[in-house]
């Protein structure tokens, strides 16, 4: 069974229809809404599996189906669908994770009055995300890109009655919009330079050698190749959406949304869209690599931004006390890893990590959601504790997720994907800095995840809500188990010994290596993970926290540094003090100009026209109006005089008719005789 690229639009269509029907269902139609959404998602999942099968028949080819949206003069705006292994793997991942999270949400959201609205938004999100994935046109991708931004806004602010949630939704929308501005400029520039926005179009697409050679050959300001400049602008969009430094500030705040939303959108799928975008336009990003004299390559920027983000996110995660915030900064950090992989030239490693991360991070968020749900929305880890005994399934699956994220070797998927990134970074010949930063982040990741597990699940319950927590129903635990299985199993698709995923993504067979290839590095990273987990264990698990208000061991040791991390390195304060204040000054200046200068000018103009009007009125009433009135009276008089001639007497009428004839005839003859 195969699906042609022509019918690929069915995959996003199903959730879109579900969203539409959910929007018209009555508010009480809770189970109906959930049924629609889940059935649509399941249908999309099946279609995605078929698409994957189709794509893997010939992994190296890009199956496309393009059509003209509308034409303006000679220029036609064309859109299309694209089916290749990258699309297919993403589709399967997005639909499967969405499906599981949709099911989990039945339990998590069961007390919410806006239940059906939630499924409406979630389905809209899924449709838009799948739209990004199957698009064969940068314009179509951008449309879907903005739609996921919208649904993210709606879902972060789902509990809009909470001021923090409303503010977070606004922050997310505005911050990502800054990146999207750059993205949009890149799209316009690309369209201007190549006349097309289709990725693959039988040799004329922007990702095909013909266009790329032209883009790389031209240079623009500062000696940058046009392809570099466009690539960097497009990367701006990825920075915003994927929470990269310096636009990462919105992502932790986005955790104000319901936890399934955090799991689906702000961990597994949408935030990975930036990584997907760069992987999709990878030929454009690499077009400048062959240029010797280029001041900077686009991918170099990507690698450094990724490295900074990876390390920074891991550092901040250490200082957080809210379960979801720890996970949020962990997401920021992991996305940084993916960017490192893209930057150092291994987009396959980036996608591998994207796929494994999607499953284990969704698992971790849903596990956190399970804890939060059980503990009556208590999400400060200092107030929890001792949940390991009460919630065994959640604890077990969460531990699997934690080990996958930390990179515990050989069994867990996170190990393999992170390892392939570190290998690629090690082999990068431009700089070793990203590699070193990535290694440091490995220690920190293992450390903060151990801290999180120890604080939440070990020791004794430190609050009433934690004491009364008990395991959730099957609708919430079954998705956790499935995700846990994926978090373990997925890694074996891309081990060095059997690099199946890598081969399928690139369409060329990758050579198999021994599992311990590059032995020194493997040993080093295993040691680093052990150090991280060991330190965490020593500090938090051996002597679990006794009460809520005991100081954190790290805080005792270095209060300044811990406070700095707990305040998220004060990025928000920094932005407030710089951009916020500058904006305030500009606004004040504009206000002053408006009131004092423009206002005065308007007032003056108003006065002048008032006087002119007064003069005009005098002139009008005295001069013109009298004249006009007189003329009007004349006209009316003429009319009256005329209508007096209309006597109503038929003889007179007939006489006029005859006279008219005679006059006309004589006039015509006279006119003729001249």
């Amino acid at each position, binding site marked *: 069974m195969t699906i042609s690229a022509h019918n690929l639009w069915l995959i996003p269509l199903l959730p879109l229809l579900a969203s539409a029907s959910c929007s018209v269902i009555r508010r009480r139609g809770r189970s109906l809404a959930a049924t629609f959404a889940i059935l649509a998602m399941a249908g999309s999942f099946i279609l995605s599996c078929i698409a994957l099968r189709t794509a893997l028949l010939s992994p190296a080819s890009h199956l496309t189906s393009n059509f003209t949206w509308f034409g303006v003069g000679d220029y036609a705006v064309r859109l299309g669908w694209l089916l290749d292994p990258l699309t297919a793997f993403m589709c399967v991942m997005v639909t499967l994770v969405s499906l599981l999270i949709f099911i989990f949400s039945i339990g998590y959201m069961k007390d919410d009055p806006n239940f059906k609205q939630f499924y409406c938004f979630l389905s809209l999100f899924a449709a838009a995300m799948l739209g990004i994935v199957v698009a064969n046109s940068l314009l179509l991708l951008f449309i879907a890109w903005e739609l996921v931004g919208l649904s993210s806004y709606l879902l972060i602010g789902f509990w809009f009655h909470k001021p923090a949630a409303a503010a977070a939704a606004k922050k997310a929308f505005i911050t990502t919009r800054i990146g999207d501005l750059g993205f949009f400029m890149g799209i316009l520039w690309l369209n201007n330079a190549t006349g097309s926005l289709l990725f693959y179009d039988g040799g004329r697409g922007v990702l095909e050698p013909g266009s790329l050679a032209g883009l790389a050959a031209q240079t623009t300001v500062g000696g940058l190749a046009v392809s570099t400049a466009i690539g960097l602008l497009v990367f701006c969009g990825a920075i915003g959406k994927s929470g990269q430094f310096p636009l990462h500030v919105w992502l932790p705040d986005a955790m104000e949304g319901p936890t399934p939303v955090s799991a689906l959108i702000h961990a597994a799928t949408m935030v990975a869209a930036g990584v997907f975008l760069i992987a999709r336009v990878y030929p454009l990003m690499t077009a400048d690599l062959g240029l010797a004299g280029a001041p900077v390559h686009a991918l170099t920027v990507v690698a450094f931004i990724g490295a900074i983000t990876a390390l920074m996110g891991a550092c901040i995660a250490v200082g957080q006390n809210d379960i979801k915030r720890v996970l949020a900064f962990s997401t920021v950090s992991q996305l940084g890893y993916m960017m490192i992989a893209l930057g150092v030239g291994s987009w396959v490693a980036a996608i591998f990590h994207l796929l494994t991360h999607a499953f284990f991070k969704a698992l971790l968020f849903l596990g956190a959601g399970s804890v939060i749900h059980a503990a009556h929305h208590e999400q400060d880890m200092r107030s929890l504790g001792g949940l390991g005994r009460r919630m065994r399934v959640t604890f077990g699956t969460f531990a699997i997720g934690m080990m996958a994220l930390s990179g515990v070797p050989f069994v867990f998927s996170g190990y393999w994907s992170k390892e392939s990134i570190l290998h690629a970074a090690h082999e990068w010949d431009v700089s070793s800095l990203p590699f070193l930063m990535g290694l440091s982040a490995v220690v920190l990741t293992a450390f903060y995840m151990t801290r999180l597990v120890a604080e939440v699940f070990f020791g004794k319950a430190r609050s009433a809500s934690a004491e009364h927590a008990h395991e959730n129903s099957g609708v919430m635990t079954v998705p956790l188990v499935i995700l846990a299985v994926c978090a373990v199993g997925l890694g074996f698709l891309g081990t060095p010994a059997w690099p199946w995923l890598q081969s399928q993504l690139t369409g060329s067979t990758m050579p198999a290596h021994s599992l311990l290839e590059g032995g020194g590095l493997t040993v080093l990273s295993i040691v680093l993970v052990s150090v991280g987990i060991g330190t965490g264990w020593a500090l938090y698990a051996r002597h679990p926290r006794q009460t809520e208000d005991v100081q954190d061991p790290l805080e005792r040791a270095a209060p300044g540094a811990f406070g700095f991390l707990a305040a998220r390195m004060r990025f928000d304060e920094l932005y407030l003090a710089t951009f916020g204040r500058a904006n305030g000054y500009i606004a004040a200046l504009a206000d002053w100009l408006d009131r004092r200068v423009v206002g005065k000018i308007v007032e003056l103009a108003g006065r002048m026209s008032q006087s002119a009007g007064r003069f005009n009125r005098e002139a009008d009433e005295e001069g013109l109006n009298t004249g006009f009135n007189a003329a009007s009276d004349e*006209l009316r008089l*003429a*009319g009256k005089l005329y*209508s007096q001639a209309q006597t109503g007497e038929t003889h007179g009428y007939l006489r006029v008719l005859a006279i008219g004839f005679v006059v*006309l005839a004589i006039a*015509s003859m006279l006119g*003729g005789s001249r």
Partner: protein
Amino acid sequence: MSPDYAGLFLALRPEGALVLGALTVLALDLSVFRRHSGDLRMALAAMLGGIAVIGAGVLTWMGPHGSVFGGSLMFDRLAITTRLGVLALVLVSLGIASASRAPRNAAEFVAVILFASCGFTLMAAAQQLLLGFLAIELASLSLYVLAGFEKTRPTSAEAGMKYFLFGGMAAAFLLFGFSLLYGLTGSIDLPEIASRLPADPRNPLLVVAFVMVLVAFGFKVAAAPFHLWAPDVYEGAPTASVSVVASASKLAGFAFFTRLLWVGMPTAAGSVAALPVSAGWLPALAAISLFSMLVGNFGALAQQNIRRLLAYSAIAHSGALMLGVMAAGEFGSAPVFYYAATYGLAASGAFGVIAVVERTGPCQKISDLAGLHRRSPLLAGCLGIFILSLAGIPPLAGFFGKFYVFATALRLGGLAGPAGWLVVLAIALSALALYYYLVVLKQALVADPDPEAGPIKVPILAAIALVTAAGLVVLFGVAPSLLLNLP
């Protein structure tokens, strides 16, 4: 020439439908509907008549193209669009008739309207003097009857009488002109006449002939100085009859005389493009146009009577339409058709509103419309659209009609010659006309109603007719090409 009766029958199926419809209405009214009340009989007769008109329209649409019966009839674009336009206008008038105070013999009223339409459709296609004259007379005689239909009401009887006397005179002129043309050329077929006409347009017989034709033209479309019947007939005749006289009759008249002048006497046209004007009927037409615009607009200014005001407005519009006829030879008759058809819609619509208002009391003075927006918002809204269209306010159809006619007339010779001056005058007078149109609207839309005047109930058929007419006025104004590219 062997007469092609089969072709003739096919081509005249619409007329057949109209006559059959008229006879059916009469027969049913005498037998089946006999016991019903007057109002119901009126509505039923109007509905039957409407079906016949729609049938005629469909048959026209499917009918033949080109010349029929040895060239006596010409089914070209102008003919077919005019036939369709005339039928549509008659349909609106029938809707209005169903709303008027029921005359004693409702079915006869409808039947006579159908006979008149038969005359109009024949006028639209006639390309032969005899057929044309018969068509005009069929139409005119029916209209005389319609004008005097309420024979117990003195004003109606007087209107019918005046119309008849005046029309009889005009018909005599027309027949005399036609016989002169026959005498000059020995033919009654228009293309034939054109080829045999004396080369010199100053030929006295020819001048007398075309001036006589112009007199009849002036009478038919109420152009000065042959317009004198119009105010009295508009004032006295039953409202539905006036609606037919003002709309369908005018459109058919313009179509017939445009064809007669440009197909039958193109060599005698002369020129008004530049001074000095050359001999021919164009300068005479220009004089009629000038006179009509002046008389119509100034006459309307002083009117207190809404019907007389509309009569003078009709005269003024005829003057403007003459400009289109002058340009039709060179630039086609589409602007004339568009203007006349949309004018007909707006005028018959305005009379329709008057007819409905009349159900509750007299509607003669402009002040009888006072507070219409309170008494019936629907009527007030429709009247607003019709009057603004008559005044030529965009985006209503009246504006584009004027625009096309003036634009084509300006192409005759720019602003240099009499045609250009007439256009300038026409534009200036349009501004003047706004005054008397707004006087009407002020009463209908702003003034307070007479405290004793109650709300007006609009009968359903009339409401449909009025709303459709108003909708078409807006639609053709927004998308004029719909009407301009009709078949």
